[in-house]
């Protein structure tokens, strides 16, 4: 028994050492230069391919690969073929940081695409900054952040949450109830929502957080019902949505009597939660599979041809796909893979994305995006009911809004 324990301890210690050497391999202090000597250039794909986030992030990885294949087929970037190096962040933030470091130092990638949760982004941020390497982050997030080495191609709050609130206001909804998961994104988002409501004469009748992964929502549904709010703003993440919408329906609440607007439910999630619970409810994103336009028709067709007819496309997938093309355009404008030159060339880069034309704002390293409110249909797809008409300038710190002063 004792000998066994000793052997186990040694084994654990050895594996730990092994991991450490791997992570620290390569040059450490100075910026790792991308390896572009051959006729290929490597890029990193950093997504959770296992663990709780895999359901969402695998689709992002797939659409990144699609963009890379398309670019390679049409001649590559600066005459070089792109070689993706895919790493599994395993829904575990320290693993994300370790893999980011591996991609930069060992694989010597020219840029990395990926991450989903704010926690994973916060974990890799110092790694990219220290190594002066670029990350393209494709998911909507809570804003109030900026990094010289991250390009944010998903929406920031003024391109998703604020337009969603504007929409509710325009529909005459005067009171809202906030339901969210208990972590950084919902709490920050709700802080912004409350500031908006205060300035716009909207009442916030209640605010409830459930632990991530929580599945007991009967009391929250009762509270929401008793509040008689006009609408619910939902920032729940992941599976909790299943339990919440089941309970919502059981409580007799409907999209007609009290609509729910969600910011983390896209086509993939609708499919897995079940459209029977969601039909008629609202979502806020920048892109839906149904978004009109030739670029989107092409994208949807290409994606389904590659991964299967029943696979929907969603907003984060589209933002990921777009980010590869934006990087390509930046590199071609800079005529170099060097991150500093790529960054310098980024301002004003445009791309005819599936969501419509997007433009890079070089100062904030976010992109101009059109906000879209959609209604979930019984077929699991989301139909647009409103859009902002034009691409909205990114404003991650909400400087353009008086009510938002003092938030960050």
């Amino acid at each position, binding site marked *: 028994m004792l000998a066994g324990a000793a052997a186990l301890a040694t084994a654990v210690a050895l594996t730990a050492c092994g991991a450490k050497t791997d992570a620290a391999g390569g040059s450490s202090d100075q910026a790792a230069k991308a390896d572009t000597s051959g006729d290929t250039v490597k890029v990193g794909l950093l997504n959770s391919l296992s663990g709780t986030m895999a*359901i969402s992030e695998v689709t992002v990885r797939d659409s990144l690969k699609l963009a890379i294949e398309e670019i390679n087929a049409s001649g590559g970037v600066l005459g070089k073929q792109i070689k993706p190096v895919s790493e599994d962040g395993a829904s575990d933030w320290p693993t994300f940081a370790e893999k980011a470091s591996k991609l930069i130092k060992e694989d010597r990638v020219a840029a990395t695409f990926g991450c989903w949760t704010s926690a994973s982004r916060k974990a890799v941020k110092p790694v990219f900054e220290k190594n002066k390497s670029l990350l393209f982050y494709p998911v909507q997030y809570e804003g109030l952040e900026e990094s010289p080495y991250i390009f944010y191609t998903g929406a920031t709050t003024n391109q998703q949450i604020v337009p969603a609130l504007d929409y509710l206001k325009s529909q005459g909804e005067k009171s809202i109830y906030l339901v969210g998961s208990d972590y950084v994104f919902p709490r920050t988002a709700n802080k912004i929502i409350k500031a908006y409501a205060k300035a716009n004469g909207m009442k916030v009748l209640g605010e*409830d957080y459930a632990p991530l992964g929580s*599945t007991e929502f009967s009391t929250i549904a009762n509270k929401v019902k008793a509040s008689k709010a006009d609408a619910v703003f939902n920032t729940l993440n992941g599976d909790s949505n299943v339990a919440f919408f089941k309970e919502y329906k*059981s409580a*007799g609440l409907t999209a007609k009597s009290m609509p729910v607007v969600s910011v983390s439910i896209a086509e993939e999630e609708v499919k897995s939660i079940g459209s029977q619970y969601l039909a008629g409810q609202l979502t806020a994103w920048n892109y839906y599979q149904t978004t009109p336009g030739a670029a989107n028709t092409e994208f949807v067709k290409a994606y389904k041809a590659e991964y299967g007819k029943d696979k929907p496309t969603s907003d984060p997938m589209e933002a990921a796909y777009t980010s590869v093309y934006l990087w390509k355009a930046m590199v071609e404008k800079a005529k170099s893979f060097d991150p500093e030159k790529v960054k310098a060339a980024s301002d004003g880069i445009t791309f005819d994305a599936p969501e419509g034309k997007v433009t890079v704002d070089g100062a904030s390293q976010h992109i101009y995006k059109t906000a879209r409110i959609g209604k979930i249909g019984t077929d699991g797809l989301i139909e647009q009911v409103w859009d902002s008409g034009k691409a909205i300038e990114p404003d991650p710190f909400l400087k353009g809004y008086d009510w938002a002063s003092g938030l960050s």
Partner: protein
Amino acid sequence: MTVILGQTFTGISIGAVLLLIALGLSLTFGQMNVINMAHGEFIMAGAYTTYVLQKSISGAGLSLLVALPVAFLVAGALGALLEWVLIRRLYLRPLDTLLVTWGVSLMLQQLARDIFGAPNVQTRAPDLLTGNITVIGGADPLTCASSRLFILALAVAAVVALSLTLRLTSLGRRIRGVVQNRDLAEVSGISTSRVDRTAFFLGSGLAGVAGVALTLVGPIGPTMGTNIIIDAFLVIVVGGIGQLKGTVIVAFVLGAMQSVLEYSTTVSVAKVLVLVAIVAFLQWRPQGLYTLRTRSLV
């Protein structure tokens, strides 16, 4: 007023879920003194059984009805297997059962991940169970979720069935005999090893039924058992180990407490307050709400 009634119903319904989860455990932990950490995974097995049946049987109502006995058998068989392979070697070492069954629970989780994939899945509830039933009509109606009523009925049926089995059948008499004095039962001609296995089969089978019920409220995933098992142990320990009556009462009391506190505070605060109340209660009554007068089994 309707708010209070509505919350009372919610409390009862949370209690019913707790009760269903704890019921099987009260047999294996309470009566047989085995700390079975894999009990949560038997619940998961029941839930995945429902999922698989729904894929192969059309009609959500029919597949749910079929799932109840099948999940009972599947989880029960897993339990009996676990008992036969591992636990029977550990009956006098309750702490070792904890370690061994914890290992088994991790293996079962990984197995589920390999078979069904890491992302959680959902079942479609029958239309009859997705709506609600109006108890009091009017301008401010009181409604009860029909899925919750179904779970409540299921919990009551399971308690009645278990209690009748323990009281009236010869199997029940043999289980009680083994619990009270294993050696004496053995010399009286009772095959204690067979009784152990049957009791384990029943307790684990009840976990499977709980798993079917849980598919009506939330998602099905490899780790659903771990979230649940702690609540179940709390109910049993506070109720008094080995006491069906205590399990029933405590499940409903904790459910009611959770819902009342949640209504006036938040989910997390309510959880903390319930745990504080449990700790305080166990200071006052370390043996739990109800106890056998003698518990000298060994």
